[in-house]
């Protein structure tokens, strides 16, 4: 505090009195944004819940066509990426810029692995015609309206996938800024906000995984 008021740090915007106030404001804003994200996904979780309560047997039969191993692999990948993201922030808190860069690169790599696995899953389903709504042509799932399962599946994992891509872009941006030496143990708010976003992407997947891959 004393050093901050004596010498105005570069990152401190003029409408904040202290760095701490600025950081806490940023974090509050980020959490309000995450609230809207939770409600965005929440509507889809609601759709899932309603359709599954209407067609429990169909959901069970359709979920057998998802690959449990690939789903588990992606769960582990995202958990590890959350760890490397948290460690990237911790490294910057300790002023270790090199390690922050390394951890951000690991996080990006794990996110890419997630998307590659997702690509294989999607292309397999597209080949079989297990597609949403009227595009659905697959025969062989018993129960009412199996295309509804894949509508919800593609909507939810698709929106999640878009979030993974957005997360990668944001991580890439803070990585570039870290390389450019914008951050220090005094100021690393953008990395921290990116971390919160990335953990939310992990949180959503933590629920998507059992709801789609591990029914019954």
């Amino acid at each position, binding site marked *: *505090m004393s050093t901050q008021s004596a010498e105005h740090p570069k990152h401190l915007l003029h409408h904040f009195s202290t760095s*701490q106030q600025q950081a*806490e404001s940023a*974090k*509050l804003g980020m*959490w*309000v944004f*995450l*609230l809207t994200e*939770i*409600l965005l996904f*929440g509507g889809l*979780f*609601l759709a899932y*819940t*309603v*359709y599954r*309560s*209407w*067609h429990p047997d169909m959901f069970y039969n359709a979920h057998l066509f998802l690959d*449990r191993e690939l789903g*588990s692999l992606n769960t*582990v990948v995202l*958990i590890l990426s*959350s*760890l490397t993201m*948290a*460690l990237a922030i*911790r490294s910057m*808190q*300790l002023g270790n810029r090199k390690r922050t860069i390394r951890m951000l690169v690991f996080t990006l790599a794990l996110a890419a692995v997630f998307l590659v696995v997702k690509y294989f899953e999607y292309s397999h389903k597209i080949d079989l015609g297990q597609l*949403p*709504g*009227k*595009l*659905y*042509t697959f*025969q062989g799932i018993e129960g*009412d*309206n*199996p*295309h*509804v399962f894949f*509508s919800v599946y593609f909507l939810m994992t698709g929106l999640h996938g878009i979030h993974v891509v957005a997360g990668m872009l944001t991580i890439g941006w803070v990585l570039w800024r870290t390389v450019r030496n914008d951050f220090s*143990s005094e100021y690393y708010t953008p990395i921290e906000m990116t*971390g*919160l976003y990335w*953990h*939310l992407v*992990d*949180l959503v997947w*933590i*629920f998507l*995984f*059992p*709801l789609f*891959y*591990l*029914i*019954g």
Partner: protein
Amino acid sequence: MNSQSHAQHHVLPLRTYVMVTVGLLVLTAITVGISYMDFGVFNLLVAMAVAVAKAALVALYFMHLKYDNKIYLVVFLVALVTLGVLIFLTLADTMTRGDIDQEERGPINRRAAMYQQDTTAVPAAAMHMTEGQTNDTTASEDTSHAP
């Protein structure tokens, strides 16, 4: 976090992060393992309990909610409670339809390719219901009064 003399940021020990990750991986192994067994409705309950536990670990430790100003936790919980209300009230509708008045269920999208292949289905009878709609109406409860 509220103290004014808080110049140094709160840095968690490396051990905490590693232990949380190990916990998340163990919980994942548990939930995958249980999915191979059949406990009826308990499968869903256990899967959700494990997911909530994992989410709590991520939110409290990775997202620092346990250590930060509690206002962030409040924002997070507001989102969850709002979502809970949304789901509860909607299910109060969708789960009780037909309890008072009889209703018949029809397939959702009669124009879906899978229904076109079924020659025994009579799309003409259903056509007037989906007239002008090129896409999935997603109204599963769309009641069809068959003649």
